């Protein structure tokens, strides 16, 4: 379980880096309603990226 959480946090960090590049630090993001399916796909992509490294 530990490993999975780490990937998520890494993914979050990745988001932060991109946000920092635009010098926008945020607490949370408002956007068009994400489906749980789309969210799971993004987690899957993050896992794939983590595995490639």
């Amino acid at each position, binding site marked *: *379980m530990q490993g*999975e*959480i780490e990937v*998520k946090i890494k993914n979050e960090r*990745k*988001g932060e880096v*991109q*946000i920092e*590049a*635009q*010098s*926008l*630090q*945020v*607490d*949370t*993001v*408002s*956007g*068009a*309603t*994400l*489906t*749980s399916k*789309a*969210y*799971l796909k993004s*987690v899957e992509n993050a896992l794939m990226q983590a595995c490639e490294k």
Partner: protein
Amino acid sequence: MIKYDFTKKACKTGAQPDNIEDVQSMNIGMSTVMTHRAFGRYAGEAIEAVRNEAVRMEALLSRFIPASEISRINRYAGIKAERLSGDTYEVLSRAVEFSRCCQGLFDVTIGPLVTLWNNSKDTCKPPEDSRIMEVLPLIDYTGLKLDPGEKSAGLQRSGQSIDLGGIGKGYAGDKFLEVFRKYGIKSAFTNIGGNVAALGTKPDGSPWRVGIQHPRQENSLIGLVSIADKAVVTSGDYQRYFIGSDGKRHHHILDPSTGYSAESGLVSVTVVADNSMDADALSTILFAAGKSKGLEILKSFPKTEAVLIDVNLTVHVTRGLRDCFQAGKDISIDILN
């Protein structure tokens, strides 16, 4: 099997006094991903209670759960009215008010049309025009009769159905903040798949910084709003859509008057309001209305502001947000009067 569910406790971090907990939680619910964060002595318990509240809301309001109150009303359309909980009655009453005030842009009985489009998503082909024309007469909120004495609701015509897509998550956001308050929390936010509702400020007294998703660049922001005690809800054409063989983007915000995806020249609308139910309904309505008509509608809602992004990605910000909106790099903004 991966469990997409975690709660993170970071006690005594930074400048937090010993008895202040900083708790964050993320899980799948209401067909989306929810994150909550709370600061306070009972932050952990509060978040647990909010998560239970989410389950309760979904069990009342989802039309995909057969035993929900909304499913019951839909099932007995044209047959009988159903007695409801205070919650379902409240959200339906407000949904009818919005349907009345924004005729042709928002209709709580849009269910049959949503079902038709949902079925076409897998094939990436829009439903046949004749099918749309067939269901269009059923989209008529005047057929939803509410009885305040009985606290009941019934659809007059068989085939009609309620869909709370443009308002239900907003209502849930308001309920979540009520739960936080009950636990003595003064600083928290909830984010239901992009619908944000914030309680108070951050523990240090600074406002919450809520990013606004860039409608055409994934993982990128178009800007942010700094807010306290406000809801920030966005409607956009960049989630829940498919590109048809004609190259057209068919997204989930349907225009109840045409039966097709709303095409108003806007790709994203963010509404900042005191409560998240209104912010949710208004972001959907403004998206369908377009810029000039949308701003006209917004005038009847005091203390409600908006960020409208048009097809050229110009960001139009209402005057009241001038000092709390910060644009991303290379983003052009237009402050509206």
